[in-house]
């Protein structure tokens, strides 16, 4: 089997892609920096006539983003449906459903949820407040709440920036605080993602190994899967398919969160300088569209990859 996971031949295309994205963001940033609300270019053509051109731009961008994440979900569905689950093979006494014997190192599907929300690990406990939640699910669950709260703080920043009945200094301070809270929540999200992937945690009665520690990696071709209901019996499974789809999908989402953090840092600084007023609050709305999209993707990623 070819174990190559990276091809240097594709590097120029990746760099060109990054250059295009970066130049787009620079143009956007330059326009936002000077925007004081007095002139917002409108789209002239049908069907977007008289809609702010930046709003149309962000929606077209989000359309392309939908395609990116759809391709990741398509891949996930394709492999998940097309690869027999390790538990089913174990239940069939180590044969595939077509009767072919399972050979150690064959690919079978162990979903990420087995490690995150399942009962696989000796160290796994049901200790979280007696609610029956696996400790390994805690980072993902907190992240879900963090993203939802961050979506709310962005719309509150927008709502506050639009208020004309508020003193300018107080308004700027509140907008800055809402945006800073969003930034903190985004930082929490990525920090917990690192904890979940690489670090794990061991706090008092709560203990959860990281996914790496559990052996859920894109290189693992010999995972000893014990499943449930089979005592000491186990099979040696190839995890590459399952782990690759999980890390690429959630990693791409994480990269989008990081991109949002870069934008949030700039916006928080701008708000701190009193840069937002009712006349140019739409800039927060346009960023908010991106941020809500990131939240929206997580709404699908969380149940699909973490819970099921």
């Amino acid at each position: 089997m070819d174990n190559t996971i990276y091809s240097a031949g594709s590097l120029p295309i990746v760099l060109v892609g990054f250059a295009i994205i970066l130049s787009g963001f620079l143009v956007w940033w330059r326009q936002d920096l000077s925007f004081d609300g007095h002139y917002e270019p409108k789209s002239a053509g049908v069907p977007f006539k008289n809609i702010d051109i930046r709003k149309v731009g962000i929606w077209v961008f989000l359309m392309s983003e939908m395609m990116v994440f759809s391709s990741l979900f398509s891949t996930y569905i394709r492999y998940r449906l097309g690869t027999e689950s390790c538990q089913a093979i174990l239940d069939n006494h180590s044969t595939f459903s077509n009767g072919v014997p399972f050979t150690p190192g064959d690919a079978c599907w162990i979903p990420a949820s087995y490690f995150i929300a399942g009962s696989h690990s000796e160290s796994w406990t049901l200790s979280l407040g007696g609610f029956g939640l696996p400790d390994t699910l805690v980072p993902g669950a907190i992240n879900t709440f963090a993203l939802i709260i961050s979506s709310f703080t962005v719309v509150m920043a927008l709502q506050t920036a639009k208020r004309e009945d508020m003193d300018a200094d107080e308004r700027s301070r509140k907008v800055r605080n809402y945006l800073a809270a969003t930034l903190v929540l985004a930082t929490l999200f990525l920090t917990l993602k690192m904890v979940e992937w690489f670090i794990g945690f061991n706090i008092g009665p709560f203990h959860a190994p990281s996914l790496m520690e559990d052996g859920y990696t894109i290189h693992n071709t010999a995972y000893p899967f014990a499943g449930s209901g089979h005592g000491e019996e186990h099979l040696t499974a190839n995890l590459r398919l399952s782990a690759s789809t999980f890390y690429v999908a959630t990693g791409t989402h994480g990269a989008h969160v990081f991109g949002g953090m870069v934008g949030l840092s700039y916006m928080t600084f701008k708000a701190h300088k009193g840069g937002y007023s009712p006349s140019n609050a739409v800039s927060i709305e346009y960023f908010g569209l991106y941020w809500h999209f990131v939240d929206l993707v997580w709404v699908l990623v969380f149940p699909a990859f973490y819970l099921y």
Partner: protein
Amino acid sequence: MSHTIFGKDAYNMNFAMLMILTVVEVGAVAASVQEMITAEMIIFVLVSIGVVKFLGIAFIFMHLRMEEDSNILTMTALFPVFFIGIMIAVIALTSPASPDSLPAWCRFW
């Protein structure tokens, strides 16, 4: 401009709904782990809640409802759905064995 749902601020109402649904979502998984509900039930719960949360974020937070330009922007957001449908049909379901495990109601034949 402030929109309302049941007389309350739309953003606050949507936020409260999203938080409650997420608590239900995580609670359902806890019930599933302890085998209090079946695998079919947990899939139904997760998909249903996911759809409602998706719509809540898109319609309220992303302003695809209740704004002057909501309709055209909703159509814009839906435009990729056609291609997504093709992608899922052609890529996601092309594994030779995969359609066999699908329930009859979502097969193409």
